[in-house]
């Protein structure tokens, strides 16, 4: 008999709107220091996220997973609610190559400006944005 997994509220929020909002059994986010897996009734947590893949397990038995390519951001769990705040999130099934390419070029151009000493923007943030764009490109290349 399959045991029933308790569900909890999960939201992946970007400035352009919710990328995911609903109930899930498990959530895995790319924490700055390593992936963080969260189940229902997790202790309160605040973390920073690097660019990577966020996986929302709607139903682990049926292998029903929503996978999102997410940019850098923040993550918070409280009162059985997990919220990932990221600057961009794209469902891996709906990656837009042209858009990812654009993001990549914009971030790279800014990184070059840092290297040239013309900018002091947060290097880590930019590297994460580049990684996010590259992530999307790899995923779409595979698909």
């Amino acid at each position, binding site marked *: 008999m399959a045991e029933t997994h308790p569900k909890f509220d999960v*939201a992946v*929020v*970007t*400035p*352009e*709107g*919710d990328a995911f909002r609903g109930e899930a059994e498990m959530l895995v986010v790319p*924490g*700055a*220091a390593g992936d*963080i897996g969260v189940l229902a009734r997790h*202790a*309160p*947590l*605040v*973390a*920073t996220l690097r660019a990577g893949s966020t996986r929302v397990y709607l139903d682990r038995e049926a292998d029903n997973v929503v996978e999102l390519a997410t940019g850098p*951001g*923040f993550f*918070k769990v*409280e*009162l059985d609610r997990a*919220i990932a*705040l990221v*600057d*961009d999130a794209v469902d891996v099934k709906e990656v837009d190559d042209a858009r990812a390419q654009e*993001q990549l070029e*914009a971030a790279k151009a*800014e990184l070059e400006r840092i290297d040239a000493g013309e*900018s*002091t*923007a*947060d290097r880590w*943030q930019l590297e994460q944005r580049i990684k996010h764009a590259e992530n999307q490109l790899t995923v779409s290349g595979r698909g």
Partner: protein
Amino acid sequence: MASVQDLKRRTRSVRNTSKITKALELVASARLRRAQSRIEAMRPYAETMRELIAGVGRSASSLRGLPLLQQRDEVGTVGIVVLTGDRGLAGPFNGQVLRRAFALERELRGEGKQVRFVVIGKKGRTTLTFRGYETAADYVGFADRPAYADAQAIAHGIAELYTDGTLDRVVLIYNAFVSALTQRVTEQELLPISADILETDEEERRDDAMRGDFIFEPEPEEILARLLPVYLETQIYRALLESAASFQGAQMTAMRNASKNAGELIDTLTLQMNRARQAEITQEILEVVAGAEALT
């Protein structure tokens, strides 16, 4: 007295213009709806961000070493960020922002401070260049449809001017969106970030106690150092979205008025044209009658 031909030509030209203004009005109202929904879409992000900052700020033991929070004792140079549109034909939209910016500049210079402009939008850049100002930075080409990445670029630019000491205080002036008919010119302090955002009220503190302690990964100070620039980005993104919606609202109103004026003008011109034509006919009849009378 203008001839019938002249009046006809003018009526036709006004009618063509009114077709354009009507079309623009429709386009603006469609875009306004889209711009409004984008403001709605970012609200959950902004709210969670604010909660997060307040929560992390409470737990951080020291707020030192966070340049974006530091108030400078001596404010020498103030940066004014002027947020205008890329296009005109929107009534007072661009003008009122610029007027407020110049008023603030006069005031600050009166207090003996230096002022540098950071301009967003083609219209603002044109005006400032025309008046001979040298801007600290300018950003153009996305005022109609700002993306979050645009806000990031601007936030980086401004934060950099602040941390390297070029600017000691940054104020943003933009058209806040009130409704489709009203835009309010708003001055907002961007930097230093007000420490108020880290403060919490009684109720939140009680909530905190109920939830128990948070696990922070990494340390709260480190998280806060990352959060503040992102907070600045969201502030700017919201202003960009509001300004874009305001622009469409202002354009819609301006074009509706223009269409109405064109309609009135067409009525007047048509009346004049009919009168002129009637006068011509009367004249011709008089001539014929007079000619006939002369023969008898």
